[in-house]
């Protein structure tokens, strides 16, 4: 049980390292084969781009866990501490809710692409929804991690203060 929760908490890191390895390998082989063997794979660039979409989306989820998303922290320097936690609470809730909304829209897009059964031009067996599905991971991951690291700790902190 402990092991499973450890893996779940570090899920993004495994995926990112895996994707990076694949992208570097595919593109390095592509450059090598083009200049040395004068042969290039028609699918390599499209494949790397799909990996990049997944890399970005999984990274968004990890960035939420690390609280690293780019934001302006001007108010944090001005407001009294009591207000800062209120603003943080609101912005975390908003982040989670809005990313759930975006995730819901992306599910609809994936569903539409699934119904159309469109495939990539240079990888004819791969359906396009595989790329869009990355967005579901990214947006729901962003919401879940925000709850995990920014919302729940604030709630339990408040409770312990009241008690």
């Amino acid at each position, binding site marked *: 049980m402990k092991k499973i929760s450890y893996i779940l908490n570090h899920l993004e*890191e495994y995926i*990112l*390292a895996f*994707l*990076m*390895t694949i*992208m*570097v390998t595919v*593109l*390095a082989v592509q*450059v090598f084969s083009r*200049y040395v063997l004068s042969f290039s794979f028609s699918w390599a*660039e499209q494949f*790397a*781009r*799909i990996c*990049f*979409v997944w*890399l*970005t*989306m*999984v*990274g*968004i989820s*990890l*960035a939420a866990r*690390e609280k*690293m*998303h*780019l*934001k*302006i*922290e*001007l*108010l*944090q*320097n001005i407001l009294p501490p009591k207000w800062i936690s209120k*603003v*943080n609470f*609101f*912005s975390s809730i*908003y*982040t989670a809710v*809005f*990313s759930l909304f*975006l995730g819901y*829209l*992306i599910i*609809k*897009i994936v569903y539409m692409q699934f119904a159309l059964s469109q495939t990539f031009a240079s990888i004819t067996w791969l359906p396009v929804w595989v*790329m*869009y599905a*990355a*967005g579901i991971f*990214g*947006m729901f991951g962003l919401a879940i991690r925000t709850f995990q690291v920014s919302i729940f700790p604030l709630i339990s902190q408040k409770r312990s203060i009241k008690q």
Partner: protein
Amino acid sequence: MIWILVGSLFFCMLLSIPIALALASSCALVFMITYGGTQMMHLLAQAMITTSDSFPLMAIPFFMLVGTLMSRSGLAKEIIGVGDAFTGEIAGGLGASTVVACMIFAAISGSGPAVVAALGVILVPAMEERKYDTAYAGSLVAAGATIGPVIPPSIPMIVYGVVGGTSVVAMFAGGILPGILMGTCLVTVNYFVSKKRGYLGKKRGGGFSWICKVCWQAKWALALPILILGGIYGGVFTPTEAAVIGSVYALVVGTFIYKQLTIKKISAAMVEAALLSSLSMFVLGGASTFGRLLTMERIPQQLAEAMLSLTQSPVLIMALIIGFLFISGMFIDTISNIVLFTPLFLPIVEKVGYHPVFFGVIMTIILCIGMVTPPVGVNLYVAQGVCRAPFANMIREVLPLILALMAGVVLILIFPGIVMFIPKVLGLVH
């Protein structure tokens, strides 16, 4: 309409909602009010994903990877050695070496704060040992690292190239001389500060042959920029491919020659690179719909007309924009700034006769100076983490260095050739 868009954006950003989501929410709000359809909402969600479906932007994670791998390979020491060999002897020699090392590191890594962390941990204690003021030592590393994104490869320039539809290759070429100029400005200020405070240089270890020997020891680090830039300008690779080849090179050198990289370190470097790249890509995703809305509503043209009705002088318009970007750079990070303001300002400066490459380089420099200005200077915070001096002291010490960098900007404005010379010689711009 414009006021709803901009107003809601500022409201969200002030509440410290992630910038990417702030951009997306303000677009969503406008869609709900004026276009009244879920179809437009789908475009918004779709754009968040398809922004990453781009080969030029894929250079970002790979250049990040080169940096994260190299800083784990223990190359920093050799690079500092090279800096010391050239400038160690003059007054404030170690300070000058710091700047030179920052410049060399800049040619390897595309981001600033990473340079501060990698070099600061070695250089700040070394400067303290030679009686440098701690806050000054930290500030010098922070200011030196602003050169990082100006000398190629550069993440902000890749983003500018894609957002502004400018050649990334030409941008890279345009950054070389301004980067060297910024370094020269810092070394000059450091010389006078050191002379006044009596920070002495160290006797050089030998003559010309000794310098060659030190450079030869750092050959694996120094060869990387030659490989990357030589490959790009030799027409062998695109920037993205150069970044991939650079990553493979860094992997091989770090694992087999320096024997510092283990599987664990490599995967940590990969995760860090991916994480840093997603931060920028997320903002780009949120901004792509925002930019499209601005264009649809003809906001850049309106802004251009408004500014041109104020003044027709190109210099004055450029000064206004630089002033605005400088202030904005104090609060917002470099990438978000480029994504937000390139579509707004580029049409204006083009109209008054500046080249997009010139504006891109100037914009990068100004925003990078923002990384050492309080209140939100990333480099300054990272440097403070390394040197542990009081923040107020660091602000006082960094001020002359900021002025030196600004003097460099003024020089570039007076002599635009500093930016345009290399791209012109290489035939990248006309």
